């Protein structure tokens, strides 16, 4: 690797042309800058904590005891206890799960819905395209947050409604990108060849077209993940996410605000955890986008 700083080394980008795109993907590794590498490490840590952390802490995050509001470093409770005497360390560790779960599932819903709609819209006739894209516009006529809140409220607060609400509101962005890419590819020779060979449209879409636009799409999907994480955290803060007593950072912050002056750590710990995770996700998304879609890079 060259001794030049990674931030200013753009030599790999100059090589980018339609033909050399695959080579460019291969030559641009991820995590080459300090913030990017740090973010990858942070996100990996959080995923690890969410996955195996609960096995290590031992304490039950929902067991109430009479030792309410013990301070940091109390015997047996490294991070103290909350107002109901529950172990704060266990709650912070377990609390990572809902946020990660909702963010990943919602992104998956947005990706499936958005890519499916976009692929078909770019490939099908004018009328289908118009109808599908106007449907997507409808979701954009509301501020995303309002749409999600209404979906969650109209259904019932919890993981399914949260995933559906966030997924639906983030799908249009992906659909627009997928439509543009699929319309561009639809005129290519290999698509024509597949058509003349008698391959049916759904098969062409999935087996021929999708692999050719997967890079830029995946990059956008990763960016969507950090947005989804932000929404998931915000909604659970409003009390419209995971319902208590299941520990969840957003809700812990809301409940902890009552004890701002007596036990600020009840707010600071889950808030800082959310903040670090969401910001790191965003850096990772940026980095992956640069790696997967060189043309979109600055």
């Amino acid at each position: 690797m060259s001794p030049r700083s990674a931030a200013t080394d753009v030599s790999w980008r100059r090589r980018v042309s339609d033909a050399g795109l695959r080579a460019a993907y291969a030559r641009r590794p991820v995590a080459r800058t300090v913030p990017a590498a740090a973010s990858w490490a942070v996100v990996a840590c959080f995923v690890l904590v969410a996955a195996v952390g609960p096995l290590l802490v031992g304490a039950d995050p929902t067991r109430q005891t009479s030792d309410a509001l013990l301070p940091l470093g109390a015997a047996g409770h490294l991070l103290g206890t909350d107002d109901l005497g529950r172990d704060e360390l266990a709650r912070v560790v377990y609390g990572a799960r809902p946020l990660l779960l909702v963010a990943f599932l919602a992104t998956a819903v947005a990706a499936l819905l958005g890519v499916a709609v976009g692929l078909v819209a770019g490939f099908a006739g004018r009328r289908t395209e118009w109808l599908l894209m106007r449907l997507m516009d409808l979701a954009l006529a509301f501020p995303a947050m309002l749409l999600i809140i209404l979906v969650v409220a109209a259904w019932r607060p919890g993981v399914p409604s949260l995933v559906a609400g966030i997924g639906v509101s983030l799908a249009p962005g992906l659909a627009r990108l997928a439509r543009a890419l699929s319309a561009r590819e639809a005129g290519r020779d290999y698509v024509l060849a597949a058509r003349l060979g008698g391959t049916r449209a759904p098969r062409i879409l999935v087996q021929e077209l999708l692999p050719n636009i997967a890079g830029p799409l995946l990059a956008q999907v990763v960016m969507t993940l950090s947005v989804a994480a932000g929404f998931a955290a915000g909604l659970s803060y409003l009390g419209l996410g995971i319902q208590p007593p299941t520990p969840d950072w957003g809700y812990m912050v809301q409940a902890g605000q009552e004890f701002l002056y007596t036990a600020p750590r009840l707010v600071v710990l889950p808030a800082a955890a959310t903040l670090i995770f969401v910001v790191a996700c965003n850096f990772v998304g940026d980095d992956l986008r640069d790696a997967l879609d060189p043309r979109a890079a600055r």
Partner: protein
Amino acid sequence: MTKTAMTKTAERLGTPWLVARRLLAVPIVLFFLASLVFIAMRMLPGSPATALAVGGGSGQATAAEVRENEARINEALGLDKSLPEQYGGFLDDLVHLDLGSSFYGGNSITGLLGSALPATIELTVAAMLIAVLLGLGTGVLAALRKDTWVDTLTRTVGTVSFSLPWFAFGVLAIVVFGVWLRWLPVLGRMPAQLDYHPLTNFVLLDAILQNRPELIWPWLQHLILPATTLALSMAGFITRIVRASVLEVLGDDFVRTARMKGLSGGQILRRHVLRNSSLPIVTVLGLQFGSLLGGSVITEQVFSYPGVGNMLVNGILQRDYPVVQGAALAIALLFTLVNVAVDLLYLVLDPRLRKA
């Protein structure tokens, strides 16, 4: 075919036609939004009547009593009618700006919005101002010091700031500035002990109209933390855009000409460079306004700020349909109007678009 015909008509009629077409779309969009809100409201789980009927009395009500109460409440609220009838009534009331009244306490929704909407507008406008100032400053700085540590730092901070989750940053700001440093008040919009009789509910306007300058300082103190929390995500975007557009313009011929004419750096920046950045900035403000409104829902909750977002969330938690409906409509209305305003502003700022 129809498309080319329309383009031709548009060319012949020019700007007034563009403006008219954009304005004509507003009622249509609003009608759709209102219908969606109506549908969402009717899907809310658990009838509000159940909540009222069970919770109303002291002690245990029998099942029969609950059912009887429920029927009486449903009748009073018009929830016993068929859905099409309810929808007709809803649209009729909407046209007359009658949004009903809260299930709890019976305050009229229009009245509640009258005090909540100005609070939210104040918050979002203040946030936009802060975002533009921060974004302009950091963006120009990063562009002028391109590829130095200042540039790298500014861009990193920009990326951090536009992904900050509002509630997490908001509560941390409360802990630092309100609890530890005790510099700023952290809850509400005005101190409770202050004798404030709203006239327009826009504090700045009221302070002028009622000639009470002493209102302004406490108001600003309460506004600064929530507005900054809300502004940071937008500021990050503006930093990026300003940096890019300044870099683009700096190499252009007209800047070189201006420099040769002997204009000072500051003059070039103001008259030539920044004027060219105004369009992208307006674009960001428009695109990000929806996200800003969404953020205000959360920020208002964090700071107990009595705006529309606060009204919406409390309405949902209490299953107060009319309150939720009114707040959702108000947010949708604000969003639509700002989008129209931004589109029209484009026409003013960029004469090239008038020919489109």
